[in-house]
């Protein structure tokens, strides 16, 4: 019995891997600037084999300077947000939490808005978003340690409160921002977008994101135990307090780093882990990599739509909400027993 479900999980994981590769490659061919699949393969092949260049400069520029950063960012942020979401959900044994439950997103959003108000450059915007995201979670965590009876509930409540404070701070910054330049910048940034992500931003952010994902990946079998419950985990000799700190730290590292380069992209961290669970069940050893792959494919796909739907760019955060919210409703109404 267990054998079949494990085989099924492996099978799904393999399919998700194939899908990820397919979306990754297909995304290179999708965009406003016409690049035919044959041209794309020709250029990619030429680059790989070091063949003499016989294609137009512009085609190469579109593929490597414009689309590649977006595609990599979509994959990285999608995987990051989903893995952080999966970890939070397991940790709190609550399917309704997501990376922003502890205030990471709201904190990072505030940090970014504040930096934009001061007119700092993009590197500083990212750094400050990251610092404020971490700060929000640390404060929320410290508050939760004062709640003796139920630290998990304490953490969620503290997170909600901290989020609200930081969101209000962001609103205040919008109020005093210059309506001609800074305000649209902040507003747009908060909508979330990966359309003009730059390669060096991506490299900076990929370090904490990959580091956090690696930590969570290595801990995935322990997550199974933590997700079952405090007492069980303790009886297996796992120090739940230390585990919780490590998982929260890793997830927050991921979320803040994601928000710091892409702005607020909602729903991914909440919805994707549920899909992963529907596909492969609750075993974190399979469910965790599944979340990462699905999240990456999902965000790359949504970004393809963001750049194709209209002449203008559609902020990706808007699209993920449009897609994520109805799906989530469907899940709750029809598959509530499975969640």
């Amino acid at each position, binding site marked *: 019995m267990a054998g079949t479900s494990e085989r099924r999980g492996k099978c799904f994981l393999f399919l998700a891997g194939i899908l990820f590769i397919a979306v990754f490659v297909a995304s290179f061919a999708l965009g406003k600037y016409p690049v035919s699949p044959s041209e794309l393969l020709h250029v990619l092949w030429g680059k790989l084999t070091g063949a003499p260049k016989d294609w137009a400069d512009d085609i190469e*520029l579109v593929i490597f300077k*414009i689309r590649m950063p977006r595609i990599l960012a979509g994959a990285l942020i999608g995987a990051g947000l989903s893995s952080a979401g999966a970890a939070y959900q397991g940790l709190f044994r609550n399917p309704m939490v997501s990376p922003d439950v502890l205030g990471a997103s709201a904190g990072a959003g505030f940090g970014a808005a504040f930096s934009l108000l001061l007119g700092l450059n993009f590197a500083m915007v990212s750094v400050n978003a990251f610092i404020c995201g971490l700060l929000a979670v640390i404060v929320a965590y410290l508050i939760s340690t004062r709640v003796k009876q139920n630290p998990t509930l304490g953490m969620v409540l503290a997170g909600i409160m901290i989020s609200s404070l930081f969101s209000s701070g962001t609103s205040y910054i919008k109020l005093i921002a210059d309506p001609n330049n800074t305000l649209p910048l902040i507003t747009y940034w908060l909508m979330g977008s990966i359309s003009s992500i730059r390669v060096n931003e991506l490299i900076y952010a990929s370090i904490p994101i990959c580091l956090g994902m690696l930590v969570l990946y290595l801990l995935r079998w322990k997550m199974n135990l933590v997700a079952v419950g405090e007492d069980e985990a303790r009886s297996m000799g796992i120090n739940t307090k230390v585990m919780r700190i490590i998982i929260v730290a890793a997830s927050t590292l991921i979320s803040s780093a994601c928000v710091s380069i892409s702005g607020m992209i909602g729903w991914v961290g909440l919805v994707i882990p549920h899909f992963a669970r529907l596909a492969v069940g609750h075993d974190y050893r399979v469910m965790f990599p599944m979340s990462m792959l699905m999240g990456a494919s999902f965000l790359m796909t949504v970004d393809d739509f963001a750049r194709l739907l209209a002449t*203008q*760019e559609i902020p990706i955060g808007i699209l993920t909400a449009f897609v994520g919210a109805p799906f989530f409703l469907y899940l709750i109404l029809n598959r509530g027993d499975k969640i």
Partner: protein
Amino acid sequence: MKKTFLSLMLVCSMVLVGAGCGGTAADDSSSRQESASVSEKSDFSTSKSSDAASDSSKENTVRFTDSTDREVEIPKEISRIAPSGPLAQVVLYTLCPDKLVGLATEMSDNQAGYIDDAYRSLPVFGNFYGDTLNMEAIMKAKPQIVIDVGEMKPSAKEDMKGVQDKTGIPSIFVHMELDSMAEAYRTLGKIVGEEEQAEKLASYVEETLSEVKGKSASIPDADKVKVYYGQGDAGLTAFVKGTVHADVIDAVGGINVADIEQSVRGGASDISMEQLMLWQPEVVLFAPGSIYSDAGTRAEWQGVDAIKNQKYYEVPQGPYSFMGQPPSVNRIIGLKWLGNLLYPEVYSYDMNEEIKEFYKLFYHCDLSDEQVDQLLANSKNKE
């Protein structure tokens, strides 16, 4: 819960930004037609009080019909004015700086060289179309009148009536876009008792506009230059064709490549670099504070001919941008600057002289040659 709150906040802010930057494209076209007939109706008629002795306050007011056809009793002698938004602030500063009792938006430090500290330290009331107008702050400053200037918005009539009902201070709206600018100056001049200065400004505006009309009509379609005008930290937020934020381009005879449906952000729309490469503008303009300084070195911009050919510029800024932001009278010098930049043979101005004259007349400040050079540092053809 938190998500809902956040998305609500986003929606609200989008709506606000949208509202703050004027109506949608659809409103624009309809309002232009109606405003033509409305603004002519702005007229004065000293109110005839049936019994002269009964009400002395009536003696000192005139009845004024504003651009939205609202009849308002306003004082005859006006020495204290509150602007209700950034556009009105610019216009009133050019017309009667000493009568302002406050500002709609705080003036930044980079405006210090052009605007006297006395004005920069006035209290800030906020902007009505941005929902930050503080009615009590206005009342505290005791203006005799609240003036809003700008595009015709469908709600303008109700909006200004609302301000008047709340503050008890007569509040009027005067329609002002490029075409109606001279007329609006004359109307405002009458209201605030600055006819002489208003006439100077109005005739300068009229002269410039008719000059520009003639010159741009003389440019054959084949020679028209394709222009992209963008802002933001990626430079990819396009100012959309057909909005007040980009009408300087159309007026001088350029072709704004960003001919797309307007987004919620009122005149600006994010596009992708791929789209820009498809448009291939011959000239790229960056708004102040955008990425002019490193556009030349950013890899993704090297597919745009204008960048490769060194035909990209930063819009001059100080005290206000030459292209708008806010789209007020600052665009008048913008017309001369952009015309001269795109078609130097047709708009054969000596920009140094032109800028000095405009600044003296409108901003009440004498510029030195160094200041002019500084203004135009990134806005001239690269030799």
